């Protein structure tokens, strides 16, 4: 059986079901709204696995799913060297959001990474510790700031309500997902001009680690053909 992982609830699930339906593959929940067993119509030999979007990257990397739909930000953040374990098949055109660096609007002197670095150096000498950036995307942010040549900062883990960490003085800046920037502005923050770390969207991925027998290979080829990927 080909195992296809799809987010188990919300808009991401509904839109994914629509995307597959438009290509002749009907996905659905087996029973009630609370049931996480899945149904597949339109192709035989495919098993729908409904699970949290955040778990899909690791399941793909481990080869327990053949295919999976999840945000590209989650794969890039959670799987080191992801390209060696997972193939990107197609962006699905929804679930778009940007991972960005945002700083207080008060910082009229900070518009670029270059400014952020200079502000971080001055902050460290004034306060005796490194400028704190709150995020849950540690790997992506660290790589981005290293490439951008920003030093003298530290990452603070924030798993939710990250936009509020500056006001509560647990961080000086943030790196978070935003779609319209509305929440950032409401919290007195602005996005750096060159602060786009990753433009994420719902994406169909294929595992390079999952086992395939002959029947699976034929099923996978048919499915990919139907999906046009």
């Amino acid at each position, binding site marked *: 059986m080909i195992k296809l992982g799809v987010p188990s609830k919300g808009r991401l699930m509904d839109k994914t079901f629509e995307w597959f339906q438009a290509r002749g593959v009907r996905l659905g929940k087996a029973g009630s709204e609370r049931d996480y067993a899945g149904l597949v119509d339109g192709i035989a030999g495919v098993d729908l696995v409904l699970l949290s979007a955040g778990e899909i990257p690791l399941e793909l990397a481990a080869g327990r799913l053949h295919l999976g739909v999840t945000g590209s930000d989650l794969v890039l953040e959670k799987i080191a060297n992801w390209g*060696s374990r997972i193939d990107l098949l197609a962006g699905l055109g929804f679930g778009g959001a940007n991972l960005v660096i945002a700083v207080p609007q*008060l910082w009229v002197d900070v518009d670029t990474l270059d400014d952020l670095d*200079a*502000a971080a150096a*001055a902050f460290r000498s004034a306060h005796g510790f490194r400028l704190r950036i709150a995020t849950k995307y540690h790997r992506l942010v660290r*790589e981005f700031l290293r490439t951008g040549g920003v030093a*003298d900062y530290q990452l603070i883990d924030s798993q939710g309500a990250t936009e509020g960490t500056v006001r509560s003085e647990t961080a000086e800046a943030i790196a978070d997902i935003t779609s319209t920037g509305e929440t950032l502005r409401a919290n*007195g923050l602005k996005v750096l001009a060159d602060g786009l770390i990753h433009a994420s969207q719902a994406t169909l991925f294929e595992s390079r680690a999952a086992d395939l027998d002959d029947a699976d290979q034929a099923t996978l080829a048919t499915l990919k053909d139907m999906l046009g990927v």
Partner: protein
Amino acid sequence: MTSPAAKAEAARLSAHFTAAGAIPVETPILQPADTLLDLYGEDIRARAYVTTDPLRGEMMLRPDFTVPVVQMHMQTRADPARYTYAGPVFRKQDVDETRPTEYLQVGFEVFDGQTPARADAEVFASVAQALHGLPVKAVTGDIGILMAAVQGLDTTQARKSALLRHLWRPRRFRALLDRFGGRTDQPLTRIALLADADPLGGAGPEIGLRSMAEVSRRIATLREDAAAAPISGDQIALLDAILSLRETCPHVLSNLRDIAVDMPAIKPAVTRLAARLEAMDALGIAVETLAFEGSYGRSSLEYYDGFVFGFTAPDHPGLPPVATGGRYDALTAVLGQGRAVPAVGAVIRPELVVALRSPS
């Protein structure tokens, strides 16, 4: 897992450094993370394993021995002092999965405030002897000369500090140098900010620890910078000449003496290089053929601030350096709470020595 051959090699190297007068020391594998984070910044978190202890907070699996050995030394007042250590270090490898995450290091650290040139030569010679007979090539460099060259630029202290801060990030260093040299334009938003009579007029709510006064101070710094003359093309050319040096030590020394005529600030550092080469010669090192690279050591962890060196295997281009070392006076000042002790040290990786020795 450490192979018996690597363990035997580590024991041989330890005995070698002990015979050179070093006291064997040990350090805990679990180190408090805050010291290392404060020194190296976030980059160390990408390279070291971090774990949490319910009482002690964040701890790190030792990514190297230098920091704990320096801390231990700073408790004593011994000068000179020589130490050797051997044991595993731990490094995350999230780009190249074939690289080991746990490997042995055998090190030699010399704290000697009296004769730094001789201490540099002693550490280099001792490592060279330990690797005798292996197909390795030594490369040397001197971060102190680069620092002196930046300090010698005819520009503001703020620019020099910015350049010194990024000496270890060659791309960022170059971008700054281009901007300070007037080779790249200011961003439009910067020009608009500086032209604004009341830049803080439309600022958002005052939130966070970075205060409005700090923002104003930076704007003042930016205004000073905009008013300062660009670093001259001649001076940038001199800096580039130093960075692109790739020659044997005697040639480099003579080139640097020429450069010092136009850039007198590097003279003391060049004199130190000359003294070091003499001391190395006295210990039997063939300095006539020893390689020197002006940029060597710039991509390493940012604590070396003088002599730097490494031994690599030219026939095994994929292999990391078998041994690396250098002088780190500034690190002892940071860890010694004001008290600095000139220090130079090196580490050898026994697994790589074994790999080079095996016929395959």
